[in-house]
Structures are given as structure tokens and as C-alpha cells.
């Protein structure tokens, strides 16, 4: 859906948005991999859900950035496009956008489901269905996507607010702030649909700060790893 925004973003931003999506993809993949490692070491369920959620978000950015890169390369190569080419590129665009929306929505639903701390396949499937199915029947999937993702982000944000109030630490504050920025970024991009291209740029830079905060938190966790003293007789 983001490539539809090509019409609503400044020309100078084309290319930068792909770079930003690659950065988002790498950061979310790192978080996903680390969460999965924590799940393997601890056997806990919450890190597994968190890992799955971030994997879907990462996949959403991966598909979008790689495919947009291919389109950009194609456009640069063939400066004069025949109508047939434009139609096929538009169709390709459409598929990419839907793939991104679906993958990102699954990621957010999984994250929201994780915050509910329930173990119910019914609830999870219901959340997925009511989030994804309407996207295929609406005349404007972009508006619906940003609306539902904003609602999901509000629920996720509430979880991190409670988490911060329970444990007032720098790291919990960083994560709370990151999700707050993700919500603001989402709302900014929402406004860009109405032809306000600058909101698209602002939204993406807000998202960049949010993902960098998440990365910073991950680095802090790794930095604070302390070694336990081995007992005598053990290497």
C-alpha cells in the first residue's frame, strides 16, 4: 500500500523510503531473532509470540523494500514506458501493497494478542479475521489499514504503559516511547493519503526514531549481560 503513496510523497523521498524500509526490516528481524533465542532458552510463550509478531513486521518491510527496489530499477532502465508496462507495474504495485498490509497487520494482531496474555486460538483467529477480511471488501483499504493498525497500536501502547508503571526503568520507558512514536508515525502516514505528502515523510522519520529506540533497548539488554561466577571445579 505504501507504493500507492508514491503519488503522495515528494519525489526526492523516492529511494529514501526504500532505504528506511530496509533499516526497519533489519531492526525488526534482529528483535525477532533475539526474542526467539530467549524463547528457546526460557521455554516461555510470550517471547515466542513477540518473535513471531516481529518476524511478520520484518517480512512486510522486506517484501515492500525489495519489490519497490525492483520497480525503481525497472523504471530507471526503461525511461519511456508503454501503456502495457505501466499497467503491469501498477498491478505489481498493488500486489506488493496488499502483501505489506497483510503481513504488517498479522504482526500487529500477534503483538496485540500477546499483550492480552490469554491462550486462546479462538480469540487470535477472530482478531485476525476481523482485521484482515474487511481489507479485501473495502473501496479504500489504505484508510481501513491505518485505522485498524492505529487501534491495535493503542492497545499495544496501553500494555507498555502498564508495563512501565509496573517497572519504572529506562528500558521500559524506551519501549513505551518507541510504541508511542510508532502510533504517531502511523497517524502521520494516515494523513498523507489525503494528498499531504509531507506527512508521509514526517511519519517515516518518526517511525525511524521508534525503531532506533527499540534497537537501542536491545543493545542495552545485550550490554548489561553479566557473567555468573563459575564454581570451583567447573570451567
Amino acid at each position, binding site marked *: 500500500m505504501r507504493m500507492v503513496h508514491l503519488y503522495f510523497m515528494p519525489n526526492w523521498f523516492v529511494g529514501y523510503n526504500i532505504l528506511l524500509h530496509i533499516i526497519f526490516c533489519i531492526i525488526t528481524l534482529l528483535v525477532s531473532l533475539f526474542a526467539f533465542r530467549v524463547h528457546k532458552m526460557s*521455554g*516461555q510463550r510470550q*517471547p515466542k509470540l513477540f518473535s513471531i509478531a516481529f518476524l511478520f513486521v520484518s517480512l512486510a518491510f522486506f517484501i515492500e523494500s525489495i519489490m519497490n527496489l525492483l520497480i525503481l530499477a525497472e523504471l530507471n532502465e526503461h525511461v519511456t514506458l508503454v501503456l502495457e508496462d505501466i499497467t503491469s507495474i501498477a498491478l505489481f504495485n498493488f500486489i506488493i501493497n496488499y502483501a505489506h498490509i497483510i503481513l504488517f497487520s498479522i504482526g500487529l494482531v500477534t503483538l496485540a494478542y500477546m499483550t492480552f496474555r490469554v491462550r486462546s486460538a479462538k480469540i487470535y483467529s477472530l482478531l485476525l479475521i476481523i482485521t484482515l477480511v474487511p481489507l479485501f471488501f473495502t473501496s479504500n483499504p489504505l484508510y481501513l489499514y491505518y485505522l485498524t493498525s492505529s487501534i491495535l497500536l493503542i492497545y499495544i501502547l496501553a500494555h507498555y504503559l502498564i508495563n512501565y508503571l509496573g*517497572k519504572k526503568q529506562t528500558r521500559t520507558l524506551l519501549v513505551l516511547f518507541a510504541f508511542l512514536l510508532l502510533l504517531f508515525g502511523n497517524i502521520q502516514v494516515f494523513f498523507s493519503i489525503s494528498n499531504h505528502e509531507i506527512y508521509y515523510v514526517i511519519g517515516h522519520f518518526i517511525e525511524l526514531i521508534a525503531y532506533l529506540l527499540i534497537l537501542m*533497548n536491545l543493545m*542495552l539488554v545485550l550490554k548489561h549481560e553479566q557473567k555468573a*561466577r563459575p564454581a570451583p571445579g567447573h570451567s
Partner: protein
Amino acid sequence: MNKKRDRLQVIHDILKAIQDRNGRIKPTHILYKSNLSHQMLEEYLGELISKGFVVENNSKTGKTYSLTPKGFEYLNKYRMIVEFVDSFGLNEPQDIKT
């Protein structure tokens, strides 16, 4: 010690109790340090032995438990796990409602 401890914390408390005794401890000491019932402790120790974190030693003076290198490694990583779980709000609920 927290009133509500998740599984991860309980396992950590057991391993920490063994570590604090220079890696070898009697079951009664673990019971005291980990604040668990006898039955629960047996279950946890069984799991820790099966996962290779702890070994059981039988001698004339009685049964003792000691940490394996994997047990020490678990304690090393535990701090990192807890920091990750805490900061990203991934704490496992004590009772999961369906």
C-alpha cells in the same frame, strides 16, 4: 522473594541456590532457599536434570545436587533473558485464563 514467581524465576532461584553453595547443595537447602513445596521442588529438579542444568550426586552422606556448565550458562543468560522480558513486557502470567 516475590509472592508470584513465574517458572523462569523459580528455575533461577533453584540454580542460584546451588551456585551460592559453590555448585553443590543438599535438597533440604534447596527447599529452604527456593521456597517451594517438596512436591514442586521434585518436579522442578526432575525437569532441570532432564534438561541438563543439574546433576544428582549420591554419596554416603546423602543426595546432593550440583550445577553443570549448562546450568552456569543458564544463570549467565538469565539476567539477559529477564532484562529482555521485562523491558519488552513479555512476563509470563502466573495463571493463564482461557
